[in-house]
């Protein structure tokens, strides 16, 4: 009957504050677009063909016009005049007849320009940037989730039980924080020696839990003495249930803000790792591996791959940082 008696919860209030913040909503829209492109490219709807060599090598962006030095390459390759001494001529003719029989046409002529140019092999930069973004964003997101999950678990145990358990985890924390994170990441990379998306996720996730741990532990110390936890204790809730059934929903906003902050840091870290060659394996494209190629291309004056990867990353990271700041303000209005 009396609807006004229902007071809005933390999340409703936070969403209202966020909605009122125009910068935050714009940033959220940009982040949403990037996530959509990740979904589309992961499901194969977009950029699945990024490895097709659709243009001439280093085809410039359309708005620059075709590169006259490369124009000759755009013509389909003329078959060499028949050579009576060619020992393979009969074999090749047979192979080509076989291909034609399977319905494979001769390769399409290569484009002289593409909307945002092509790389060394004639891959479309736009598709490549979307595909690279998929790798970088997925690594950043999953690694951040792993790090925050670990930090939350350790922080909950540490803050809730206190005593010896707390001493143990605090000791762990002091060990991990006394080694600079980039050194820790490189050390683990040196030891694991296997390249792969899963490896980077593990490296970043296993070394990045200290920040969330410190905050979540402080929250649990604060919350465990509150009345609702005592009430849960009185009705016989187990420690596990008190920790994750009762307290966690009240501190989950801290975890969420940590995820959004770590995603930004981890995307940057993945780019650097892949650039150095300790990240994604050969054959997988990420923004870091694109920057690695672009470094050499720039000396030849082919700036478009660098601009595409750097620009896409800068836009995403700016939007994500602005959104993370707004999210923190919206969920924790006391801190301002």
């Amino acid at each position: 009957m009396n609807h006004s008696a229902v007071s809005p919860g933390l999340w409703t209030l936070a969403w209202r504050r966020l909605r009122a913040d125009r910068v935050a909503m714009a940033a959220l829209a940009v982040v949403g677009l990037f996530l959509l492109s990740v979904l589309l490219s992961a499901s194969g709807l977009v950029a699945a063909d990024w490895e097709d060599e659709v243009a001439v090598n280093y085809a410039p962006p359309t708005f620059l016009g075709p590169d006259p030095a490369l124009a000759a390459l755009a013509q389909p390759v003329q078959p060499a005049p028949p050579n009576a001494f060619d020992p393979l001529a009969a074999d090749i003719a047979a192979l080509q007849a076989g291909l034609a029989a399977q319905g494979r046409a001769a390769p399409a002529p290569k484009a002289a320009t593409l909307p945002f140019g092509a790389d060394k092999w004639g891959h479309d930069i736009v598709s490549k940037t979307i595909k690279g973004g998929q790798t970088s964003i997925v690594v950043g997101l999953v690694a951040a989730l792993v790090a925050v999950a670990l930090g939350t678990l350790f922080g909950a145990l540490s803050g809730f039980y206190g005593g010896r358990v707390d001493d143990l985890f605090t000791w762990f924390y002091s060990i991990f924080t006394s080694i600079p994170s980039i050194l820790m990441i490189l050390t683990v990379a040196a030891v694991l020696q296997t390249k792969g998306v899963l490896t980077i996720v593990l490296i970043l996730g296993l070394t990045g839990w200290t920040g969330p741990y410190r905050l979540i532990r402080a929250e649990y110390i604060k919350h465990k003495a509150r009345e609702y936890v005592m009430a849960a204790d009185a009705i016989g809730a187990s420690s596990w249930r008190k920790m994750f059934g009762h307290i966690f929903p009240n501190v989950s906003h801290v975890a969420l803000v940590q995820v959004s902050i770590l995603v930004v840091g981890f995307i940057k870290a993945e780019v650097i790792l892949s650039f150095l060659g300790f990240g994604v394996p050969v054959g997988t494209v990420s923004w870091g591996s694109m920057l690695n190629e672009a470094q050499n291309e720039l000396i030849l004056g082919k700036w478009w791959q660098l601009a595409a990867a750097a620009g896409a990353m800068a836009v995403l990271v700016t939007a994500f940082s602005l959104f993370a700041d707004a999210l923190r303000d919206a969920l924790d209005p006391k801190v301002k």
Partner: protein
Amino acid sequence: MRGRVHAPFDNPMLAYILRRLWQMLPTMAGVVVLVFLLFNWVGGDPSYLLAGKMADARAIENIRLQLGLDQPWYVQLGIFVRQILTFDFGNAWATGEPVSHIIASRLGPSLTVLVPLTILETAIGIALALAIAFVRGSLTDRLVMVACTVGMSVSILVYIIVFQYGLAYKLGLFPVQGWGEHFGENLLRYATLPILIGLTVSLAPTLRLFRSFVLDEASQDYVRTARAKGLSERRIVWVHVLRNAAIPIITYVMSNLPALLIGAFLLERFFGIPGIGREVILAVERSDFPVIKAITVYVAAATMVFNLLADLLYQAVDPRVQLS
């Protein structure tokens, strides 16, 4: 109480330092065990790596014997601890150069870049943060903060690639890369562009952080009092606020110094500076475990010592801080 009887404990400063050093031991032991586990348990057997592609069983057995890998784990841990304490990690696997010599000779070039960079970054960061705090909440303040967020979102790789290409390769204002024999030549010729890039990259996050430190102080009672007694805004900010904001700034700068030693690895790699960071990258590329182990352990120790130094500096800056 009984501790007071001993002469060294009469000096509270010395007692504090000794106790802090004592408290570092468990953490340091943890670092040593962590590094040991990473390399001996997760890392697998390095003798296959060392023996090369055409290894036979005897060569591998011989290497295992030399590295002590045939010993039980506690003997191996003992070997590792002795290596740390005697600064003797043997020779690097890839080059055969003694690890202690690698660290000693790479420290100079790293510091040639890092010391000027840290001094400039801190000085410019403080000056800009105080200037921005003057006009807090204004359009200038907001624009500068947005510019910082955008500046921070561009990868450091892009700054290095573009600056090196533009300023060094195209315009020829700086050498593209290289390192000389003399300190003056290195500092003024080869280190200038890396320092400039380091400043560009680090100024945005530093300014954001220092601004928040300054603004935390700006709402304190003593600021109101200073204003009430008619001090100029300039004097309030540059004398009263700065003195108090110095504490978090000192923590940040001091605790960041050892991390910077590694953090400058991209600058060192791009510009061919033979520093510690570049050595770490090379060691990771070559799986040169002794070098990585040594650098990790010593950088961790340096981090702890610098945190202690930061706490000691506090007291020098702020007599209210009690060392306890």
